[in-house]
């Protein structure tokens, strides 16, 4: 007997949602093995990873705080992926958004101007959009692949941030630490729950869920995005401009990543440092796929991913495990998801081996 895949007559709708659950179960098993190999009690570690962070208000607030950038970046990425526009550089657009918005905060903060926060947010969005406009231009004008250009620009943006905080924007009173001075109080996002760090950015993130759903499901623009992704020849035949869709997708995801960036530095951080993100922009790619490129699904997957970040920090503190565990689990989760996705279009069948088939033939 051997396993073989047989194409389904039509995609199994149930598997579209069952496959992330299968992936989650697979990952939990994989993670348990990993913990055992690292010499830690798997059950205790799983408890710290997945349960402990949810037991306090503070933990839940931190969850919302970490889910905010993931949700914003992932919905933008997902809209792009629907059109097969692969924005892998959300991390870079996040960084530039933080730089632009942070620049406004450093320049105009401390005057109690009512317009400061809106302008900071707009600057963050505009920065992210501008950074994403480069690959959009290079793709539509020169056919340069966006996976590579968005990624290269991410490395450039991180160096740019490094240059600024080591150089022109360095806090003179910062004991030569590479960081800017703290933003003034009027340049910080208002808190939602007193005593926690949960800020108003989570509202923007939550609002993007229904907006993303309407865009993809009910508008002509969303229909065009989906057509360009599902069948480029059909889109050309229908008269949808692929270039226009590339621009829309990159500007949208760039803007959302930029908003996430400024919310991060104007929220919990309050200043620019060389490292402002623990890889949110990359993790958001996993979030987008785990959420089936569907905004409502992404709402759940971003919460799960935020939990992984929180739990990873917990493991670092209480089990002395390196923070890299988080990245490993993230990658594993995506592997299991991609593997489980095969069940959407194929069913697994046990088939008699070749020799056996021949024998039946002669009978």
């Amino acid at each position: 007997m051997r396993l073989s895949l047989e194409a389904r007559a039509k995609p199994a709708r149930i598997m579209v949602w069952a496959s992330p659950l299968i992936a989650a179960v697979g990952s939990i098993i994989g993670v348990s093995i990993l913990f055992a190999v690292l010499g830690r009690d798997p059950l205790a570690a799983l408890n710290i990873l997945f349960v402990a962070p949810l037991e306090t208000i503070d933990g839940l607030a931190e969850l919302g705080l970490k889910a905010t950038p993931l949700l914003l970046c992932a919905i933008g990425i997902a809209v792009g992926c629907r059109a097969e526009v692969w924005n892998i550089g959300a991390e870079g657009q996040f960084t530039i958004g933080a730089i632009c918005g942070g620049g406004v905060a450093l320049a105009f903060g401390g005057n109690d101007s009512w317009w400061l926060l809106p302008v900071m947010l707009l600057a963050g969005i505009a920065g992210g959009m501008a950074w994403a406009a480069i690959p959009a231009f290079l793709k539509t004008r020169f056919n340069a692949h966006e996976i590579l250009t968005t990624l290269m620009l991410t490395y450039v943006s991180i160096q740019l941030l490094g240059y600024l905080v080591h150089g022109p924007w360095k806090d003179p009173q910062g004991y030569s630490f590479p960081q800017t001075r703290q933003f003034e109080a009027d340049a910080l996002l208002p808190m939602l729950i007193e005593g926690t760090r949960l800020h108003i950015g989570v509202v923007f993130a939550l609002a993007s869920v229904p907006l993303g759903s309407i865009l993809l499901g009910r508008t002509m623009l969303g229909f065009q995005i989906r057509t360009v992704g599902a069948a480029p020849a059909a889109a050309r035949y229908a008269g949808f401009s692929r270039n226009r869709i590339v621009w829309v997708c990159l500007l949208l995801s760039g803007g959302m990543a930029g908003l996430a960036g400024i919310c991060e530095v104007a929220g919990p951080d309050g200043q620019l440092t060389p490292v402002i993100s623990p890889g949110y922009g990359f993790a958001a790619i996993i979030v987008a796929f785990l959420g089936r490129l569907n905004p409502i699904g992404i709402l759940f997957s971003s919460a799960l991913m935020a939990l992984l970040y929180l739990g990873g920090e917990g493991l670092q503190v209480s089990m002395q495990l390196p923070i890299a565990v988080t990245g490993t689990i993230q990658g594993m989760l995506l592997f299991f998801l991609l593997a489980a996705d095969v069940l959407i279009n194929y069913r697994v069948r046990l088939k008699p081996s070749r020799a056996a088939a021949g024998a039946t033939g002669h009978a």
Partner: protein
Amino acid sequence: MHETEILLAVVVATLRAATPLMIAGFGELIAERSGVLNLGVEGMMLMGASVGFIGTVATGSPILGFVAAMLAGAALALVFGVLTLSLMANQVATGLALTIFGVGFSALVGVGWIGTPLQGIATDIWPGLSKASPMVQQLMLLDPVVWLAILLPFIAQRFIYRTRAGLILRAVGESHDVAHALGYSVLRIRYLAVLFGGAMSGLAGAYLSLAYTPMWSDNMVAGRGWIALALVVFSTWKPLWLAIGSLLFGFVTIAQFQAEALGLDVSPHLLAMLPYLATIVVLVLISRDATRLKLNAPAALGRPFHATA
């Protein structure tokens, strides 16, 4: 005399910087020639870098370290192969997953080895070199991996265009359906190509942690895997062009070294942007002629294959 020495130093530094790009790029070129787009080069290189480093420190043998690194790269490539070839997962998404996993897992594996000192690998592989002139000595004092990288394009050129295996590889990359109809095992050929690509990525990563900068640190590949991917596109899937592209990038990568030699005072952060910006420029130059790119690209690149039998 002084200028000659600087020039020689630049040549040697360029060759050393080009080596990981050449090796990883060549592995990816073979995989892509078979029709598989593996975007996980960065992740496989990182695994190679950490496993190669640990292997060398643990056994004291760089050769065992390199072998371990190649196995680690191939192991990660095997995961990619199972997902994309046997389970027909999206190659772009799987490649990204491979890189994300590789970044995390290499850091996890290497966490206890950060800051461990290691002597670079031996470079005096030519007997009687001490009798040669200092200039020849400087040029010949390259480690074996660099020599391999110098030979690689010529070997590759011969393999792809002059051997039957190379012909079959090109055929599978052009049309898996036709190759299947003619009786070739598309999956087996693609698995081999992907595993080879993984092993080469692992070797390239280990070169970074064992010879280029003999140490291990998180994320030390720093985008070279992605640059190697871009170079494959730049080469239009031809080994000799891949070599030229790698040398070009090796030259840009050592900009910091050159700036110092020229006495320029530029922020290291700005200089570090150069290879990434150069990648974008190169990509733009090569991609603008879409027809030429289409003509040279393996026609089945990135398309999943499912035999209906």
